[in-house]
């Protein structure tokens, strides 16, 4: 039996967490998110001219999606480069969205948008003390993931590859090692997913879920791609639960050779 995803005590039917950015239109965003079956939608905060209507329209759509899916908003701290910035943005998000969940991003390098592990740990510690449920976006560094878990992160979100690249799982060994060494943590693969097979592979490794945005939003047909990812996650999860056979070094015939018409006893 396939279990539901548990995020800080909330059981969710889907193991896909999905972003709300980069879609061709707000209407397609809504259709794609609903087609994905996801019950967790990421969003952010930014400066906007109050006269602009676009932001209010997106906010209206996101509220409708959450109501329709009985889902959850997951505000991020995108754009923050220091722990202080991330903590301030998390507090602002908590007030607006009425949630203590935060996808914690603290970027350390502008080229590959790699998280800053030092600032990330600092912000995590501050936010957990303040009652936040932190979902940290981090690299596939085992020791960093252990430190985040030790600080109280029940959910940890290592990257597959840099944000928006679609390069898939750059380092499967690291990701498998994190899974093996942190068996109790809820592991969500976040960022860099390009194809449904990438998500399937993560689930076959025993990851608990996948968070993606660009792979759906930038697809030729985001709605169809959202469905494809939903199916890929289900396939990967059931593959993991089903128990993958062990690889063997030599060939073994699938069809019994004994008494086949041209069998030759050696």
């Amino acid at each position: 039996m396939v279990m539901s995803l548990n995020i800080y005590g909330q059981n969710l039917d889907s193991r896909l967490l999905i972003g709300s950015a980069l879609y061709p239109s707000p209407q397609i965003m809504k259709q794609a998110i609903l087609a994905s079956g996801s019950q967790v939608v990421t969003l952010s905060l930014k400066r906007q001219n109050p006269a602009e209507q676009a932001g209010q329209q997106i906010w209206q759509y996101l509220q409708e999606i959450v109501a329709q899916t009985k889902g959850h908003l997951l505000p991020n701290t995108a754009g923050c480069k220091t722990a202080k910035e991330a903590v301030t943005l998390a507090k602002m998000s908590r007030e607006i969205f009425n949630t203590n969940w935060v996808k914690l991003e603290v970027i350390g390098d502008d080229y590959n948008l790699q998280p800053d592990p030092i600032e990330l740990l600092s912000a995590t510690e501050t936010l957990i003390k303040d009652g936040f449920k932190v979902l940290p976006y981090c690299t596939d560094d085992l020791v960093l993931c252990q430190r985040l878990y030790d600080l109280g992160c029940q959910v940890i979100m290592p990257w597959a590859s840099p944000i928006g690249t679609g390069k898939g799982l750059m380092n499967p060994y690291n990701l498998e090692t994190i899974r093996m060494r942190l068996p109790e943590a809820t592991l969500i693969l976040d960022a860099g997913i390009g194809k449904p097979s990438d998500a399937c592979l993560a689930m076959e490794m025993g990851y608990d879920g996948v968070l993606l945005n660009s792979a759906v939003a930038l697809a030729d047909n985001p709605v169809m791609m959202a469905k494809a990812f939903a199916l890929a996650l289900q396939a990967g999860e059931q593959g993991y639960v089903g128990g993958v056979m062990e690889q063997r070094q030599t060939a073994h015939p699938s069809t019994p050779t004994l008494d086949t018409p041209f069998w030759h006893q050696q």
Partner: protein
Amino acid sequence: MNIHINGKAYPLNHEAQITVTAALALHFIEPQQSTFAVALNGDFVAKGDYDTTRLKNGDSLDVLLPIQGG
């Protein structure tokens, strides 16, 4: 005095400090109609503190609204 709201300068004729509530009235047409949160000089200001938190010369207010995100 001068204050900044979302990077835009607002020269004010009077010398007295103004509250966050008063500053927001400069920024918004209808503050009560919008979903937003505020930070003063990089520190979060809770809604309940808008009337008691004051801006002085050179202060910077960030007013953030929901937007799509990944």
